[in-house]
């Protein structure tokens, strides 16, 4: 895409030194309401969606808490315990978190049987689970877009092959596919990077839905006249796909990838729960729940804290995805007739232009 980037740069340069419009050429330049670009419209609509904005802020806070408390890339976090550290039991392992008066205490989320700090474990679990979620979303998104775009644009033989491949992947239950891939990954790579390899491999299995969506979008977009115009201008297939069609399908892609991320975190959780995903000594939210399910009646906090974070993250991502879908879909309109005001009335004879003049506006 270097060619496109160059043109973009040239245009950006010109934007900086605007030339005055030629006067008197067209009556429409004067007094015109400035239009908004599609990006601006989408941003405005997204920010108008209260649920989505709250979810975005909440998700950002959860990530901030998890990464700053646990530390990452070897940088130590501010919390005094790490997730593998074994401590003495305080208060029989029950959470020391107090709301009135507020105090964290020694182990705010409690401890497990061995005395490991649940807060540190949960934060580490959030880090791993979210990382796996993003890897699955991005890898699945990339594979889905490429396969869907190729099938939708080229049609014919290419489409038949790619779509039959998609059908084959779809009929294998996702959990089995992911479990086998995760098992293979677990036995061959060092423990530290194992969760990330898991994400990569599961990502390669979850692209099918997106591929079908992107294909459908391409099938309709390739019939639009601007694609013919690009072809007459001499554009290659690669250029038409990436420069002309893909930017117009980006709404569908963003929404679908976001929603697939929330199902990815659940997939990771279920894989870890059945013992096929992340393995000890590393932790993930699913693994924490699985390890502590026997303690449900005796030490319920071991179960509740990771569970709450799973629910919170999934809800946030889903709300953000819904918000994005609404923002990209121009048919979604909210209108409150009670709060509306009257707009200034336009006169039927608008300009003092000569008799019989019609504007081209």
């Amino acid at each position: 895409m270097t060619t496109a980037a160059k043109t973009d740069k040239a245009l950006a340069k010109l934007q900086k030194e605007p030339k005055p419009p030629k006067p008197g050429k067209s009556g429409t330049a004067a007094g015109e309401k400035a239009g908004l670009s599609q990006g601006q419209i989408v941003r405005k609509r997204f920010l108008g969606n209260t649920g989505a904005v709250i979810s975005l802020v909440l998700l950002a806070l959860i990530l901030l808490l998890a990464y700053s408390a646990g530390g990452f890339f070897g940088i130590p976090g501010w919390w005094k315990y790490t997730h593998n550290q074994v401590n003495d039991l305080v208060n029989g392992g029950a959470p020391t978190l107090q709301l009135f008066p507020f105090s964290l205490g020694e182990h705010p989320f409690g401890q497990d049987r061995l005395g490991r700090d649940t807060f540190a474990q949960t934060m580490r679990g959030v880090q791993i689970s979210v990382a796996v979620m993003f890897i699955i979303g991005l890898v699945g998104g990339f594979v889905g877009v490429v396969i869907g775009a190729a099938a939708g644009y080229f049609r014919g033989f290419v489409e038949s092959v790619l779509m039959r491949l998609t059908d084959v992947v779809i009929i294998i239950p996702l959990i089995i596919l992911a479990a086998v891939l995760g098992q293979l990954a677990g036995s061959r790579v060092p423990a530290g990077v194992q969760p990330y390899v898991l994400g990569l491999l599961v990502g390669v299995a979850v692209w099918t839905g997106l591929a079908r969506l992107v294909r459908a979008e391409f099938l309709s977009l390739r019939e639009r006249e601007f694609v013919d115009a690009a072809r007459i201008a001499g554009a290659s297939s690669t250029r038409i796909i990436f420069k002309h069609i893909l930017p117009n399908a980006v709404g569908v892609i963003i929404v679908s990838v976001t929603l697939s991320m929330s199902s990815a975190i659940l997939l990771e959780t279920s894989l870890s729960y059945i013992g096929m995903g992340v393995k000890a000594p590393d932790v993930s939210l699913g693994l924490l729940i699985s390890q502590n399910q026997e303690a449900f009646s005796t030490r319920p906090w071991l179960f509740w804290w990771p569970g709450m974070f799973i629910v919170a993250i999934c809800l946030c991502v889903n709300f953000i995805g819904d918000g994005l879908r609404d923002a990209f879909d121009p048919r979604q309109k909210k209108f409150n007739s009670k709060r509306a005001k009257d707009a200034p009335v336009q006169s039927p004879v608008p300009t003092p232009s000569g008799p019989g003049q019609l504007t081209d506006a």
Partner: protein
Amino acid sequence: MSDVFDISDEAPAPHAGQVPVLQVRGLSVDFGVDKEWVPAAVDLDYEVAAGEVLAIVGESGSGKSASSMALLGLLPANSRVRGSVKLNGRELLGLSPAKLRQLRGNDVAVIFQEPMTAMNPVYTIGFQIVETIRLHNAVSPDEAKVRALRMLELVEMPDPEKAFRSYPHQLSGGQRQRAMIAQSLSCDPKLVIADEPTTALDVTVQAEILDLLRNLRTKLDSAIVLITHDMGVVADLADRIAVMRRGHIVETGTAVEIFNNPRHEYTQALLAAVPHLGMAQDSTGAAAEDVDINAALAAATGASLEDVDDAELRRRERENAEALAQAEAEAEKAAGTPILQLSGVAIDYPKQGRVPAFRAVEGASLAIYPGQVLGLVGESGSGKTTIGRAAVGLLPVAAGSLKVAGQEIAGAKRRQLQSLRRQVGMVFQDPSSSLNPRLPIGESIGEPMYLAGTAKGAALQHRIETLLDQVELPRSYRNRYPHELSGGQKQRVGIARALALKPQLMVADEPTSALDVSVQAKVLELFRNLQRELGFACLFVTHDLAVIDVLADRICVMQRGRIVEQGTRDEILRNPQEPYTQRLLAAVPLPDPDKQRERRELRAQLLAIESS
């Protein structure tokens, strides 16, 4: 409006003192956008009597459809309607939904623009008409069927029994529109709202439907509100006219008054912008002599007219013949190699899945010489767009030879097509679909030059500016996105892009059919000036004979994939030989009630001659 009760001599007069069927007072419609009420119609006053046709004319966005749909409460939730609408003295605004439902279809019926989408594709025509009848009348299914068949007969359906059992997709466009008219009239409505009833139809079918509506009007004695942007349709059908602009009625009057003596400047401008068939301008820009199509048709068919006495008609025919001889003498001999040459070209649409290959064009031969504009006319499905797309290499040629600037492109390889594409430009039909919504228009215009490598960097930007100047758009528009531009402006951008490589051949595929008449007039004028200035050869594809008449040197008439007649503009317009061409010419409605009456009569005789 004081002239509400003006009566033209040809209209069935509303009896003095009688309550008009529809009485609209101070009707205002607003739409809520971004927490603001934006007015769509402001303070409308009009009335329609039984048996009368009121045409509401205006361009897109003038509020003509919104105000009429408001009568029936058919507007979306973000709208507000104020004022008073009385049907036979009964107030309609503020009625409960249940009461409104009783009125809809029974007392007030609507004929929609697009019968394919207005009819339910999963039910038969008969089922849908019977449903309407039985919703409003307590009749048995058998009685309803008898009535439905009678309605289908009334709308002159060729085979009512068969149409009754057919699904909408099994009928042709004209038959579908007839079926929808039958459905809307099945409960004997007092008021019929016809929302652009012929816009989606071909011109010959449009003429048939207009005939039908005219006949029905006298039979049914309903009041008809006709919403349209087509002055020709108005002249054909309307008794009174209300001209709307930006939500206001700017002028009302009888059809004769409006056409012969428009008072408001907008009405004058609107009438002036309508391209009349046979009213092309010569190169100096002054109006050339009108082509008297009626006379040409009369001469071709040997028909006579009731209203015009024979001597007068013969004189007009003679004048027409003289003008033709003169034009032929003046016509310069085509010189040089043709820019586009088709000989015996056939074009297939390849088979897809179980759908077999379809031959869209067969045995087409034509030639365009440098600087010439060839108009390709035909109805939908005649293959005219297919030829246009093949000429720029978007469709493969199945048989025959297609040469662009002397280069054979039938069976050409990719590399050869690349070099072809530097010679051709194309302007598309739909301005909103032909520009990439995610690219600023400067980049859209610059793309052909960028890809061809003819200009880079500052030179490219300079060339983009020149092109914007040529199509009379401000240079600052370069950084705008297509959705910030109006339809006419987008089409100008499309023309600029097509001109980018200074092509020898321009293919214009119905470039003005999606535009309002006033905008269309300006875009056509721009196109004509550019063509004269730059001297490219042009293949102009259109279904609108009036548009092609303004531009074309030669005209090609297509029917069902074949070229049936071709010749110079004067040969085709003044002396049409083929019955199909004659029928096509006769079907174009004229924006002049008197001339249109003549034309109608000629058309009837033409059809009578053909059928005998």
